[in-house]
């Protein structure tokens, strides 16, 4: 595997399957009395979160600690970052502290790329602007595989604001690498102009897509998009692209409903759908820790040298 995990597109099929299989094994640690492995003892993992995200940060923190790594949390509020310290200077500070890995969440697409040029450790992208969120895609794939037993040939429909979604981008790349068939459903205004070049199908009619979906993944829609004329009203969006109980009934019997969170209950997803037995939203969170443990283990525990005797 690469030194960094910045884009889901960086992962070959073998890499991706290795991460999922490793996560499978590590999942069992949660059932033990001692939920810790000594594997990353002495390593330092820095959580560099420029965007507020308690859930993702805690997930990475739990993952690192379960592998016995030391965790340092660097959040944008109340640190030198708010005083206008540049990303580069922050990177140099982390270097001086000896960070083996930096997990970065940032509002600017490409921030992890830049960081990777300034630190010697591994960079894990925890979400950069509208670009990618590879560990989210990995935990989504892990969840699908757990629930439905396979990924190859699985029909996955992703619904919502694809244009601004890093989760959508990572999922399209990773799922197509793993052999799934991806369909994007959204109003044309929320799809990138060049989406035709992506490895997926595109549709505008959610009702038509649902009967053929083994997995439907709902993306969060921000109400502010209405002000930039991406859709006329929240009501119209919800009516045409929201997943309510009636639509959920259109899914095949085994069909599951996913959402990366946080949800806008009542906008893109109805409350009863989110709480239904088909919904994987809660287990996605738990799976996140195992998947992130696998990622940290595979990035940090080995050397870069080839096999030695």
């Amino acid at each position, binding site marked *: 595997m690469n030194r960094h995990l910045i884009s889901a597109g960086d992962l070959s099929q073998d890499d991706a399957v290795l991460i999922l299989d490793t996560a499978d094994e590590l999942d069992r640690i949660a059932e033990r009395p001692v939920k810790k492995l000594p594997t990353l003892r002495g390593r330092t993992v820095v959580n560099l979160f420029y965007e507020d995200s308690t859930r993702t940060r805690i997930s990475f923190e739990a993952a690192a600690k379960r592998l016995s790594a030391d965790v340092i949390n660097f959040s944008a509020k109340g640190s030198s970052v708010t005083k206008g310290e*540049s*990303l*580069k200077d922050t990177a140099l500070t982390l270097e001086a502290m000896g960070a083996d890995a930096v997990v970065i969440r*940032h509002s*600017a*697409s*490409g*921030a992890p*790329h*830049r960081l990777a040029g300034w630190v010697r450790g591994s960079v894990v992208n925890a979400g*950069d*602007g*509208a*670009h*990618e969120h590879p560990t989210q895609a990995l935990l989504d794939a892990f969840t699908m595989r757990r629930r439905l037993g396979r990924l190859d040939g699985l029909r996955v429909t992703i619904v919502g604001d694809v244009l601004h979604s*890093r989760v959508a*981008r990572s999922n399209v790349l990773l799922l197509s690498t793993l052999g799934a068939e991806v369909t994007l459903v959204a109003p044309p205004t929320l799809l*990138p*102009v*060049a*989406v035709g*070049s*992506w490895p997926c199908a595109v549709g505008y009619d959610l009702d038509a897509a649902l009967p053929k979906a083994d997995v439907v993944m709902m993306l969060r829609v921000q109400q502010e998009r209405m002000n930039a004329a991406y859709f006329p009203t929240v009501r119209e969006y919800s009516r045409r692209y929201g997943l309510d109980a009636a639509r959920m009934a259109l899914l095949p019997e085994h069909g599951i409903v996913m959402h990366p969170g946080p949800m806008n209950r009542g906008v893109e997803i109805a409350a009863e759908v989110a709480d239904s037995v088909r919904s994987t939203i809660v287990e996605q969170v738990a799976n996140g820790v195992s998947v992130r443990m696998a990622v940290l283990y595979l990035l940090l525990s080995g050397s870069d040298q080839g096999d030695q005797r």
Partner: protein
Amino acid sequence: MTGTWLITGARPLGRDAADVLVRDGLIAEIGPGLDEPGAQRLDAGGLILLPGLVDLHTHLREPGREDAETVSSGTAAAALGGYTTVHAMANTEPVADTAGVVEQVWRLGREAGRCDVQPVGAVTAGLAGSRLAELGAMADSAARVRVFSDDGRCVDDAVLMRRALEYVRAFGGVIAQHAQDPRLTSGAQVNEGEISARLGLTGWPAVAEEAIIARDCLLTAHVGSALHVCHVSTAGSVEIIRWAKSKGWRVTAEVTPHHLLLTEALAAGYDPAFKVNPPLRTAEDARALRAGLADGTIDCVATDHAPHPLEDKETEWEVAAFGMTGLETALRVVHEALVEPGLLDWAGVADRMSARPAAIGRLSGPRRLAPGEPASLVLYDPSPREAVDATAHASKSRNTPFAGMVLPGRVVATFLRGRPTVLDGKLAW
């Protein structure tokens, strides 16, 4: 006074070798086997001789952003690039929208003495796009402004653009438009297309440039004025300009060296060295721009030299400043992009980088290599191929997208009205 120079063995416009005698600031004679006892001699064997280059679009940053560039450092960079005239854009601090500021810039240029600095006046006061600046006062000032531009911003209000085009007819001026519909490009970072979709950056659609150009061409025709289009970047824009010219309308256009050679693919690593406005576009666009420059639809090359300090470029993409330096690499890039593939010969380069920009800028006197003309010249060695070394640049800023790229050629000497500003590739003034 300037001395007498005998330049031997040069190849004017790339043709057969000849000697050039420079005396009292003028070209005295061109021909084989010249001699002038007492003259300083310059052996120009194998070097291409071109008229001094004219840049219609440079940002010298003074007054206001002297941390990025000054008139002194900018004109040094210009001279090293073979330029003898640069038009300094008006988006300084304060904005060059009064006679006072344009005269200040003009005077700084004369004091530095490395190349002629012709200030460009703003179209609207403060570049705010709401009312016209004192165009007449700037035209009458010592700086004799004829080219007006809000570059950096678009004059997007159609009524204001119409008024500006009409008003400058009184003194033979031209409006140079930075074509960018602000509403269609709100928050835009890169060309809108495959790259923007993949990188998760807000796109800058080609139509935001093309729609403004089409409108402005029609306005220019309607009021009988003259329009110059800054930094054309798309194939569609080239087509629109070709159409406008076919109607006999007085539309001229420029293209930057970087748009001729580079494409949006370079943005893939999120390195803001490649962030510029208008953005780098597709390979098809670059091809159309080269063809457009070759066939004359695009009149000239203009650098849009935009220096920025390191801290404004060494950041995340979205936060980085737009812009690339260009004076010191322009001729080499044009050599690589047009001369090497045989799209343009050296006579064509002289036309696109000296004669036509001088004409558009309404500068006194044509630019020809003939006896009696001002001896503003550049000697260029076409043979070396070396990587661009940004640390050796005279510009205060290092934001060139060509750093480390292998390009042909080297400017050996530059003369400004008979006085050498660059000798042996180094500043001589």
